[in-house]
């Protein structure tokens, strides 16, 4: 029996490769455009980062690596046994300094974001009504152009925020790369899954 692992070619790939190599696990070469690659006794699927938990939830992949931001957003029913430690980022709420957001919220907040579910959940816990404008990227320009009052987005250094005239209002969550595991694989392929987790954990 062999395990299938879902990865995304995004910002977590280098960290994933370093970790797998350190753990003595096979890792696919990146000089190929194939999206399903076998390496050693593992099979790798390359998918969009938002889709990693989906492939794992449905059992198409036994395990995968994705950011906790993606997990919050996807809300998939998967196991998350390990924090892999790399790819640290922060999910924040940001707005123009002049908006006065930190002091008082408007009755209905209009928020631009790629992370619609995260944003909705955040405003719900504050008891605020939020109108979500779902964008695919470049959300930082939305407040300046009047598309939204604020944004919910990932920041690594905060430079993009600053250069677009936004201030961080609040950190919603600290995020990092997580190992996700399918519920059924955890039992049906118990030995392989346990070995994978143990080898990765030993390298953290």
């Amino acid at each position, binding site marked *: 029996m062999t395990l299938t692992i879902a990865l995304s070619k995004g910002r977590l790939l280098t960290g994933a490769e370093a970790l797998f190599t350190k753990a003595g696990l096979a890792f696919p070469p990146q000089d190929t455009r194939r999206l399903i690659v076998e390496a050693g006794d593992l099979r790798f699927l390359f998918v969009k980062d938002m889709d990693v938990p989906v492939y794992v939830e449905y*059992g198409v992949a036994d395990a995968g690596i994705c950011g906790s931001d993606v997990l919050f957003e996807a809300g998939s*029913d998967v*196991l998350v*046994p390990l924090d892999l430690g790399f790819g640290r980022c922060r999910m924040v709420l940001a707005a123009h300094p002049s908006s006065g957001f930190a002091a008082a919220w408007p009755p209905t907040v209009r928020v631009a974001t790629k992370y619609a579910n995260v944003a909705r959940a955040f405003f719900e816990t504050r008891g605020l009504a939020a109108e979500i404008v779902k964008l695919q990227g470049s959300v930082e320009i939305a407040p300046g152009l009047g598309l939204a009052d604020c944004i919910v987005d990932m920041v690594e250094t905060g430079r993009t925020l600053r250069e677009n005239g936004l201030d961080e209002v609040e950190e919603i969550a600290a995020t990092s790369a997580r190992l996700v595991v399918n*519920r059924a694989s955890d*039992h049906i392929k118990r030995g392989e899954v*346990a070995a994978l*987790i143990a080898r990765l954990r030993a390298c953290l």
Partner: protein
Amino acid sequence: MHMRLQLPQGASCFTFGEARARRAIEARVVSVFDGWGYDEIVPPLFDDAATFDPTLASKLYTFSGRDGTTLALRPDFTSLVAKIAAGRLRQVEAPLRLYYSGEVVRYEPPRAGRQSEFHQMGLEFLGGGGPAADVEVIAVAIECMEAAGVEDFVLALGHAGVVTALLDAAGLPVDDSGRDEALASLNRRDPIAVARALEGARGSGPARRALVGLAEDNGIRQSLDAARIACNGIESVGEALSDLESLTRTLDEAGLGARVAIDLSESRGLDYYTGLVFRIYGGGLGFDVGGGGRYDALLGRLGRPLPAIGFMLGLDRLALLVDRSGSRSPEPAVSPVVVNARTLGESVREARERRRRRERIRFEGPA
């Protein structure tokens, strides 16, 4: 007038080979229930909304009765069966071995592969207490999977008492908001979130460490011996672990040991279950096909205190699993014999003769 031809989101519909395969699988599972001496109960399609488990409240499809009461389509069978056993069947002596097979309706957020309408087949052993009932239900569940034609499957066994006792000892009593968070995190095996949920809890350190360990360490979660060491000295966990120990010993002795595996992080919605809990997984399907457990407190709340244990299988998921496991359709359609005699009357006569011999026909009448 323009009529939308799609079915509403979440509604399900099966035809031809799919419908036939489902019917065949259902027949096999039901014959296992019947073979173990269970009698069928056909509960109502709807009841007062208050009948159903409060954890399902947000998923109910409710409507108003003609007298103004709030009714709901059944979201599961267990609460209905328990209510009927405590009411209408009060005079029938326990134990009651009952099985059911039918659709339930539960609102699920729109998402591929998730229907709001699905078919459950299950049994409730009311008045079934102690190890004998636990083993019986596990054995029936295993036979159902075998009868359906699934070869690669496993029952993950846990005990509601383990998680309950640890949460109590850790200082997260029932009604503490942290408790739900800890349970949900444990269900995802997320050690970081479990630790976060326990931050404010003032209970025993070992209990808190054991809870994080259950999420973090496959050893503690999957081995009763390791769990015993990790939970040493925490009251009433030992009892639950002993229950599971003797259950697995019995299953080994019965030759069923290879079909079960321990998973102590399993709790399946705590309010309801009081003892053994399990989920059934099959190779090739990413989610469980069914599960069950012991719920000794429910009937007492309805005024007929009886221990009880039950389990159910989702027909939709089971059919998917049978299909994926590569075995042929359980009941391929026989091609029908065409009936077209000289006259319409003779054709009918021939059709009836063939039908007496149980042949499958297609009636065409004279050419």
